[in-house]
């Protein structure tokens, strides 16, 4: 059981990093609380797996320390940390039975045989593997194999955290849900920290209590799924989370108004003058409503997509593409229409970062 602290952590795969671009992982300070369910979300190549491998000890960081509670484990090898990892592709030991696979980590740690046997039964029951305990592990489907990989981590009573590296990549879609709820159940049943790396926002938002969004080797926001949706701290988060992503438009801010070209948009509060290269307005399509011509900001309608539970209009305003939701009962004649923006959900970004009350002075960047 442990709280995992990352202290000024940074990593470069090149031997002599000088510039910021040399770092695969830029400096990060973060605390993973005991028993939390975290997701590490970001596109491929943003440094998620590097971060995970540093925590598990497979990669030694270039700078900074990793602490489990108060113990500095930066220099400890993987096998000396009480951590387990589940990989993208299921790892099972082909020549062994499921039972032997599950017992393997305990056998290596010289746990007495009767205790091992009991523990294996327990974990097998938890993962619903009891039926197949005596079958060869190589004989099973991918989701079963992934459960075995997970089981090898859970079976160790000392394990403080389990790290998942995109564990559902090779699992059939209809089994993904099932396996993910198994994970949630286990998280509730056992007091174990789980860190789940993925590039799939649905997986991240449904699994985790707290999501850490990474972009280009840096953490851009940490928050609950609601916070990420309501108040993206960075235009990247707004764009990456949500389907379709947040609308981002270059604008000019004057007091409580933003101007997109010559069109005025009301803001929920006045802003102090912003000194930044790039000032943008962000609003999620869910809070932009398409209305008939003349009600709000004039736009050109490109097309309307029916995505099942809602209709999304793809429109163009001053040459900028936007997505907006189409309220029930609204039908648009021709391709001229207008947009109504909910001022409570309009955010202003300076150089990509959210302008908050504290930073609303221009030192946002």
């Amino acid at each position, binding site marked *: 059981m442990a709280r995992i602290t990352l202290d000024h952590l940074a990593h470069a795969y090149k031997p002599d990093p000088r510039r910021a671009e040399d770092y695969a992982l830029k400096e990060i300070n973060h605390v993973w609380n005991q028993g939390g369910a975290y997701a590490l979300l970001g596109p491929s190549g943003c440094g998620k797996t590097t971060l995970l*491998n540093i925590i*598990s000890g*497979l990669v030694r960081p270039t700078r900074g320390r990793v602490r489990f509670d108060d113990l500095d484990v930066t220099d400890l090898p*993987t*096998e000396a940390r009480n951590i387990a990892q589940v990989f993208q592709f299921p*790892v099972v030991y082909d020549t062994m039975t499921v039972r032997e696979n599950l017992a393997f980590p305990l056998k290596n740690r010289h746990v007495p045989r009767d205790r091992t046997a009991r523990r294996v039964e327990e974990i097998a029951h938890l993962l619903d593997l009891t039926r197949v305990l005596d079958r060869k592990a190589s004989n099973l489907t991918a989701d079963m194999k992934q459960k075995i990989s997970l089981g*090898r*981590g859970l079976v160790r009573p000392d394990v403080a955290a389990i790290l998942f590296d995109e564990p559902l990549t090779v699992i059939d879609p209809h089994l993904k849900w099932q396996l993910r709820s198994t994970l949630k159940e286990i998280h509730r049943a056992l007091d174990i920290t789980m860190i789940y790396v993925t590039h799939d926002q649905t997986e991240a938002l449904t699994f985790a209590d707290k999501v850490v969004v990474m972009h280009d080797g840096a953490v851009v926001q940490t928050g609950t799924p609601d916070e990420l949706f309501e108040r993206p701290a960075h235009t990247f988060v707004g764009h990456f989370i949500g389907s379709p992503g947040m609308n981002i438009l270059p604008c000019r801010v004057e007091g409580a108004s933003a101007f997109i070209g010559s069109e005025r948009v009301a803001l929920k509060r006045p802003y102090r003058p912003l000194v930044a290269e790039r000032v943008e307005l962000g609003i999620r399509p869910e809070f932009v409503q398409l209305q008939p011509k003349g009600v709000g900001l004039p736009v050109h309608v490109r097309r309307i997509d029916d995505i099942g539970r809602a209709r999304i209009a793809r429109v163009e305003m001053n040459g900028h593409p936007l997505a907006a939701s189409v309220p029930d009962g609204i039908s648009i004649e021709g391709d001229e229409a207008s947009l109504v923006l909910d001022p409570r959900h309009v955010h202003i970004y300076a150089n990509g970062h959210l302008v908050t009350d504290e930073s609303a002075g221009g030192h946002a960047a």
Partner: protein
Amino acid sequence: MTKTVNNKAWFFVLPVFAIVAFSAVLPLMTVVNYSVQDTFGNNQFFWNGIGWFQELLDPSSQLGERFFDSLWRTLLFSAIILLIEVPLGIAVALAMPREGWTVALCLVLMALPLLIPWNVVGTIWQVFARGDIGLLGWIVNHLGIDYNYTGDPLDAWITIVVMDVWHWTSLIALLCYAGLKSIPDAYYQAARIDGASRWAVFRIIQLPKMRRVLLIAVLLRFMDSFMIYTEPFVLTGGGPGNATTFLSIDLVKLALGQFDLGKAAAMSLVYNLIILAICWVFYTVMTNVDAQRERIEA
């Protein structure tokens, strides 16, 4: 589903049948023809039925004794070199670097012995092992060890075995290396997290993943060593005495040295059948392994 039946395709395969007939079937029939006859020269042949085969397979006859001696010698040789080359090849493959510029260097160095023509390998070792001018022989003799591969049967065997190990271990190493390279990193990382020892990693990850290539390597090396001719022929000529006369060398002695065409023909047919039988066993084992794997993956 209906299948288009078009037997015209057979015409395109016909040339192959013709070539195979001339290159394999006709010579083979000649051998079969010789094996049931006896000749005293002048192109005069006498019917002998299965006489040669009876003599060949009867260990109490002169021909049979000679045949079985050569056969055991050949099997012993194959067994020895497999016992040395397979573990050694695996060890070399494990020790080879996985990344960096040294990989290419290693691969080239390893492949070099495989590229040398077999009779050149024999010649190299013939000179290398000589006591008077050969580096190896000279050094060994000067270390106070009495070593003479042309006079002492054991020395001759050791030299041939070492030569074969030098020549062919890299084949096994390269095949195993390819097998090792195909193991994803996650397996090693998972094993580290599970606290597996180096030996356990080898036993539960590397060896099972190498099984297929190892099977092929063993098959190749067995067939090659069972049919070995050129290198020992150049190195020892089958001597001293008959100490290194393997089946293939014996066959040539019988056919081209003594011109006992009937006996030699019978011997080569039996030799051929032994090789086919062993091939079949290997093939069955390998396809069984594949079928098992497919069942597992299905």
